[in-house]
């Protein structure tokens, strides 16, 4: 077996798998079996990553939040508290799985399980390396969007099945919010897809490789819109109105306890990693890092990028208060949607110029980058001016009074 002959192969785990498939082909297996086996291998790889990520993320998130909040975070179980997620899981599994009397039993039990499906499926279309992609869908970006829209239904399922008023409030909030945020997110990705000319994530990464530049340099506005929009879709602070601990306690999963709650908790982290991975491949070149992947395996770089973006989400969570529901909707419809529309039109114009006049990429791409950055800056500052409270009636600071001063009421003339 030459499988482990040289480490070089492990820069791209697709290579050893290809070797394995070749070996199986030599052994005379039919194409269908090889297809199934390679699919299984990829699935195992992705599932193990998701499993490990869900566990590690609990630790990372709690440690980082602890760091932000001038405390230590979990540090007792295992070295640096690394085994804390395991302890959490053991505790959650031991707990009684409570179910409210009038809950819809099947839906109640099914929801935390089903919600994992879109979360895990999202990883299948991501290119982890040049040949490390489980399903290179031609419509990969659309596939991811479709997955995110199904999550809505499952969250609603959980909230409705709980037969709890807070849960209903939470799930109605989720539905209203996700419908609003789908539009700007889709339009932001439309800019990326138009620019790259393909909906396949592999195609988008190879576009970035071909033109030797990450897409964030051409699509800064789309990146921001997607980042903010997906924060809302992920139900994370400052847009965690579906869970809204301080208002509707835990929203749609208020009645869940034990490992069912644990699954919701884990799926949130997995979803966050999935979104970070999508951002990493769409805007930061995925595994491609300006030639660095020659020396460090591309998938390690990819994971590094995922966690850098994940850090932004944790940072958001640690620092920002929550929007109110209507403010969040207004933000989607009044700010993100127009920005995304303008961005998509700008990209269409640029692509038109590029293809129609057949200008070489070397000239036109830097110009696009500068133009798009300028546009993003102008739009963000402009919208900030328009949307922010320029009409502050009163100063923020209270006035300081030397002595008590209470006026008498105006004498009534009656």
């Amino acid at each position, binding site marked *: 077996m030459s499988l482990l002959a040289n480490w070089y192969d492990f820069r791209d785990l697709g290579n050893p798998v290809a070797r394995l498939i070749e070996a199986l082909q030599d052994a005379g297996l039919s194409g269908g079996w090889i297809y199934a086996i390679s699919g299984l291998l990829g699935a195992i790889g992705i599932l193990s990553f998701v499993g490990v990520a869900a566990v590690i993320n609990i630790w990372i998130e709690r440690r980082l939040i602890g760091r932000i909040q001038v405390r230590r975070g979990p540090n007792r179980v295992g070295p640096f508290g690394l085994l804390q997620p395991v302890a959490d899981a053991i505790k959650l599994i031991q707990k009684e799985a409570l179910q409210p009397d009038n809950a819809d039993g099947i839906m109640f039990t099914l929801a935390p399980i089903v919600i994992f499906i879109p979360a895990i499926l999202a990883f299948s279309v991501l290119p982890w390396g040049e040949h490390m992609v489980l399903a290179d*869908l031609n419509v990969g970006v659309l596939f991811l969007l479709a997955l995110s829209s199904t999550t*809505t*239904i499952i969250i609603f399922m959980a909230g409705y099945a709980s037969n709890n008023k807070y849960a209903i409030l939470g799930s109605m909030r989720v539905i209203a919010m996700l419908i609003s945020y789908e539009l700007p997110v889709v339009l932001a990705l439309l800019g990326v897809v138009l620019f790259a000319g393909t909906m396949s994530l592999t195609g988008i990464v190879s576009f970035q490789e071909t033109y030797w530049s990450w897409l964030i340099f051409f699509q800064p506005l789309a990146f921001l819109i997607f980042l903010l929009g997906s924060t809302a879709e992920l139900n994370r602070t400052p847009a965690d109105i579906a869970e809204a601990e301080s208002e509707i306690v835990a929203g749609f999963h208020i009645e869940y306890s034990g490992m069912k709650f644990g699954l919701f908790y884990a799926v949130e982290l997995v979803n966050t990693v999935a979104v970070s991975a999508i951002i990493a491949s769409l805007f930061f070149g995925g595994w491609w890092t300006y030639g660095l992947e020659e020396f460090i395996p591309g998938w390690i770089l990819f994971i590094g990028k995922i966690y850098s973006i994940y850090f932004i989400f944790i940072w958001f969570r640690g620092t920002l208060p929550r929007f109110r529901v209507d403010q969040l909707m207004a933000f989607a419809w009044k700010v993100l949607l127009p920005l995304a529309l303008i961005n998509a039109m700008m990209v269409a114009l640029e692509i038109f110029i590029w293809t129609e006049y057949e200008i070489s990429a070397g000239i036109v791409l830097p110009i696009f980058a500068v133009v798009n950055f300028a546009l993003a800056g102008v739009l963000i500052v402009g919208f900030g001016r328009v949307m922010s409270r320029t009409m502050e009636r009163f100063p923020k600071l209270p006035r300081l009074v030397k002595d008590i001063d209470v006026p008498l009421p105006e004498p009534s003339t009656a």
Partner: protein
Amino acid sequence: MDDLGVVIAFWALAAMTIGAAAMLILVRNLMHAILFLILSFVGVAGLYITLSADFVAVAQVLIYAGAISVLMIFAVMLTPLSERDNSGNFLQLPALVLSGLVIAGVTFVALETEWREAGRGSFDTTAAEIGEALLSPFVLPFEIASVLLVAAMIGAIVIVRDD
């Protein structure tokens, strides 16, 4: 073997789609009915994939399972009925007759049509072709559809606005 896989997938998806559709009619709880409807939509999306129509499949999930069903959930939640039950009403008998007729018609058509077997397509960039088709030969229906949607949107806003 290749064909076998597709055949198995087809039958499994067909069973899922039809089973879910049947359950959608049979269950009494409206919420469950909607969830079965979604399952049925997902099954149809799977069938599209066996036909190598990946764009349509994903669009099916995105639009039908993701958006249309949400509208239905809203409709059910806004229905002023204390118990969300699919209760019987006086239209039961006409509906039964009508659906029987539809089943008969569909069965008749399915059995009597001379089906042409298409060659297996490949997972090419169907999205691009659809896009080009929409914007060159079918541009008029496409634009009319968007005008219709705008009109519907304005109508919805007018209805919802108080006073």
